[in-house]
């Protein structure tokens, strides 16, 4: 007699199992198929193309009414199985009808997770799981706004599908970058860019607080920070949970999913389960490939044939037109793991392979996924790749072919990109010079002038030579910024400007960084270069700064911090001194010291106390002395004409003016000044980065002094007759240094590279250039001259830096 098989759920997994079963033995079972959805099995995966309009629902139906009929499957669609009596082996339908079974198969799939925040039950709050959800989204048009919570696969497909219909879509994602489970930061950055180009608004690190409604219908999503995002429809795509309710109710063994063994049998030998509702060996499933394997095994088990389900590697592709993205395997970094990264800035291509013991264990690809199957094969087969290690990343076509191209970033530059700032020479002009016969660096310098001034563009000029001449030209060795890049500091700075790069991931992608996220050497350097290049734009990344600059205090050997308020020109007042004395008492500061920079240091302050101590100091009108900054430190002065019998000018007053104008600026390294009233030099101006010696006839400006690791006497830059000019020259010189020096080079190191004569030309001789430099400095100061402590002590900026996440010190250990 034919046995009775009842299947709960007509989804992708049970559909495949049915096909396998019928193909192997069409007469083995009399099948009844229940499905809560009012339809049979369709290709759920293809709902996204249906949403975007690339396909119709009819095209994605897997099993039609005819198919079920031909194969003798009794369909009960739109009917939910309400209960199962395992003792009597009957299934109870919603209408109370009882149907006996010999074998029962669960394929109940999963339920989308709905965040139980306020307003989640309003009309217009949906998930993305079935045709009904898809149809609701398809009803949106140009006049509608939709918010999608969740920047994973599903959320982005929903967003892109609606954006394709002209809907104003905002994606709200809690994590720092999109699809963080599949992608690393750089690929996430490329993806974000592509979605923004499609008109989608993307908000990362955004925590949803509640859903606001009106007359029972969704009106807006409110974020933690109070922002309201108005919407007519809100789609939650934040994950799925195996649908185990029924299985649990009838007493099957259930963990995260319905427990199954290698034969897909549940804890009841007459009941099988397949698909997203199962848990096998601790794992649950969310993609179809493993479900199809399960289906195959389940069909065999039903036919009493031996079969074993084995978990395999799975891969993901994003089904958004124009965003080719593939990811497979494991790509967390680890000590015994090695990364190979390939970026093609011109084509927006990113590839990353993670290797462990000469095997590929993870792969991420963006932009060009043509070779994804080949890489996926290497992962699945655990192929030993030692022999093709060098060209592996280029894919199968290049095996034994061309090596990596270190010139990619320069190759991608347009012809009109400026390479030599000093002489205003573009890449195209350099190529023209080379094509005109200039085949050495010197010849290019002579004919085009590129590289003939400060020399900082020489690296790039050389690369243009290499690109234009090919093998005929031998590239000289050069010092790179760090092991993450083939470019020098100068190259990177110039390319940031030429290509208008405005974030660290942007720089890393477009300049072909070899590591996935940089290192502690390049990250702070890049951050400074961006801060300097784009004042007024939000490019600063605190996380790429050394702790002192991040929390605006100097870390001490015991993890406490020191606090140094600014005292312009070394001048203070009784009020300031009282405020310092008061905070020292109030916060039990262990040491109060006069520094070598003419101001007072409070040492040994607890990190948590920093905002409070600065609040009090701020009340007394004091601001951060930035004793921690790669930026303007101190302007030491002597007493000058006010009190000294030798004084020639108001050195104290000039020092205060200069410090007032310059404080807050960031630079490649610290920058210290002194103004001294006569050549007796009581303020030690002759060993400063910039020193001014007042003389009867005016002001001698000296630069490039040092009294730290190296001891160097400052050199005369220029003598000017007025205070105004002294200030102008100081600002111009500082700006020239800010724009040109490599990160962590004090002015004397940079001057040694570019030559004092060139510096003199720029700020002493060329008055127009001097004015332009000073103007750029002042423009930049509009944005950077903010007291960091005013923001932190009063406005709660970065408060997470100063408060613990949680405190369990009072919780007794268990």
């Amino acid at each position, binding site marked *: 007699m034919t046995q009775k098989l009842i299947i709960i759920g007509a989804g992708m997994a049970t559909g495949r199992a049915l096909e396998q079963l019928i193909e192997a033995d069409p007469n083995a079972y009399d099948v009844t198929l229940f499905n809560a959805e009012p339809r049979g099995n369709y290709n759920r995966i293809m709902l996204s193309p249906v949403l975007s309009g690339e396909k119709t629902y009819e095209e994605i139906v897997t099993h039609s009414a005819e198919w079920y009929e031909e194969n003798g499957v009794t369909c009960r669609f739109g009917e939910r199985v309400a209960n199962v009596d395992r003792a009597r082996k009957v299934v109870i339908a919603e209408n109370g009808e009882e149907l006996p079974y010999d074998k029962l198969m669960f394929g109940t799939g999963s339920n989308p997770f709905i965040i139980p925040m306020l307003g989640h039950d309003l009309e217009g709050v949906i998930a993305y799981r079935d045709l009904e959800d898809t149809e609701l989204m398809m009803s949106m048009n140009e006049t509608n706004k939709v918010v999608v919570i969740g920047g994973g696969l599903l959320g982005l497909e929903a967003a892109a599908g609606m954006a394709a219909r002209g809907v104003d879509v905002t994606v709200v994602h809690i994590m720092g970058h999109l699809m963080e489970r599949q992608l690393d930061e750089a690929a996430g950055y490329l993806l974000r860019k592509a979605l923004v180009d499609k008109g989608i608004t993307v908000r990362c*690190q955004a925590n949803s607080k509640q859903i606001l409604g009106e007359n029972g219908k969704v009106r807006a999503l409110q974020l933690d920070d109070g922002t309201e995002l108005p919407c007519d429809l809100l789609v939650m795509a934040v994950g799925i949970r195996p649908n185990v309710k029924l299985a649990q109710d009838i007493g099957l063994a259930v963990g995260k999913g319905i427990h199954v063994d290698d034969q897909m049998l549940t804890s009841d030998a007459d009941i099988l389960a397949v698909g997203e509702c199962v848990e096998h060996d601790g794992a649950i499933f969310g993609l179809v490939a493993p479900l199809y394997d399960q289906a195959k095994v389940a069909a065999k088990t039903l036919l009493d044939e031996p079969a074993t389900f084995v978990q395999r590697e799975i891969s993901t592709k994003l089904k958004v037109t124009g965003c080719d993205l593939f990811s497979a395997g494991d790509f967390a970094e680890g000590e015994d793991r090695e990364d190979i990264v390939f970026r093609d800035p011109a084509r927006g291509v990113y590839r990353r392979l993670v290797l462990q013991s000469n095997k590929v264990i993870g792969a991420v690809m963006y932009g060009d996924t043509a070779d994804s199957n080949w890489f996926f094969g290497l992962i699945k087969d655990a192929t030993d790749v030692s022999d093709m290690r060098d060209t592996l990343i280029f894919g199968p076509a290049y095996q034994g072919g061309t090596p990596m191209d270190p010139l990619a970033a320069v190759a991608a530059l347009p012809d009109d990109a400026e390479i030599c700032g000093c002489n205003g020479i573009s890449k195209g002009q350099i190529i023209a010079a080379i094509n005109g016969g200039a085949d050495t660096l010197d010849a290019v310098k002579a004919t085009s002038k590129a590289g003939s001034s400060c020399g900082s563009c020489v690296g790039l000029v050389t690369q243009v030579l290499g690109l234009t001449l090919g093998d005929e030209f031998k590239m000289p060795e050069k010092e790179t910024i760090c092991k993450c890049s083939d470019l020098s500091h100068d190259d990177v700075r110039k390319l940031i400007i030429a290509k208008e790069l405005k974030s660290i991931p942007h720089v890393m992608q477009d300049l072909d960084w070899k590591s996935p996220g940089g290192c502690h050497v390049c990250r702070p350097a890049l951050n400074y270069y961006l801060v300097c290049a784009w004042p007024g734009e939000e490019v600063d990344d605190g996380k790429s700064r050394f702790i002192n600059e991040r929390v605006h205090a100097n870390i001490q050997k015991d993890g406490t911090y020191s606090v140094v308020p600014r005292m312009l020109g070394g001048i203070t007042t009784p009020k300031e001194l009282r405020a310092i004395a008061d905070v020292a008492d109030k916060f039990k500061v262990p040491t109060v010291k006069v520094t070598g920079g003419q101001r007072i240091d409070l040492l040994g302050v607890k990190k948590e106390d920093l905002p409070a101590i600065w609040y009090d100091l701020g009340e007394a009108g004091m601001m951060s002395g930035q004793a921690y900054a790669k930026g303007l430190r101190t302007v030491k002065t002597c007493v000058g004409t006010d009190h000294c019998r030798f004084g020639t000018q108001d050195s104290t007053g000039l020092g205060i003016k200069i410090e007032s104008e310059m404080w807050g600026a960031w630079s490649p390294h610290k920058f210290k000044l002194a103004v001294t009233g006569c050549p007796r030099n009581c303020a030690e101006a002759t060993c400063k980065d910039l020193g001014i010696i007042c003389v009867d006839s005016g002001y001698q400006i000296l630069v490039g002094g040092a009294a730290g690791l190296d001891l160097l006497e400052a050199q005369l830059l220029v003598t000017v007759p007025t205070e105004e000019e002294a200030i102008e020259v100081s600002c111009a010189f500082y700006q020239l240094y800010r724009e040109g020096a490599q990160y962590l080079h004090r002015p004397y190191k940079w001057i040694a590279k570019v030559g004092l004569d060139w510096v003199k030309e720029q700020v002493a001789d060329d008055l127009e250039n001097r004015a332009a430099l000073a103007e750029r400095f002042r423009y930049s100061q509009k944005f950077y001259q903010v007291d960091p402590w005013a923001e932190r002590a009063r406005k709660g900026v970065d408060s*997470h830096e100063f408060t*613990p*996440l*949680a405190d*369990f010190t009072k919780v007794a250990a268990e």
Partner: protein
Amino acid sequence: MTDFIDIGSVTDIPVQGARIVRTAHGDIAVFHTASGHFYAVDEYLEGKAGPLSNGIQHGEKVTDPMRNWVFDLATGEAQGADEGCVGTYEMKVEDGRLLLSSAAIAGQVAAE
């Protein structure tokens, strides 16, 4: 089975940022890396490195602010020429919440 304690939301720690969790046995630094992973490790390697939550992160590593030692956040191992290991603790993320193993709060380092 490990018990977990809710210590906050994933947005409480900025990407590539870190914050500390105070326990009776000393501070634990919780890191949020650029790849979206969270790690909990000891704030100090006694007498050698720390406070690690103050370091610069890159990939799944952090550079100690004091002596530039680089630690792997997953294993706690010092990288390169330096030798040492900070304790690591089990963590997980569920529905946007950060969960730290209660063993960490009781001062028990995760078993390797």
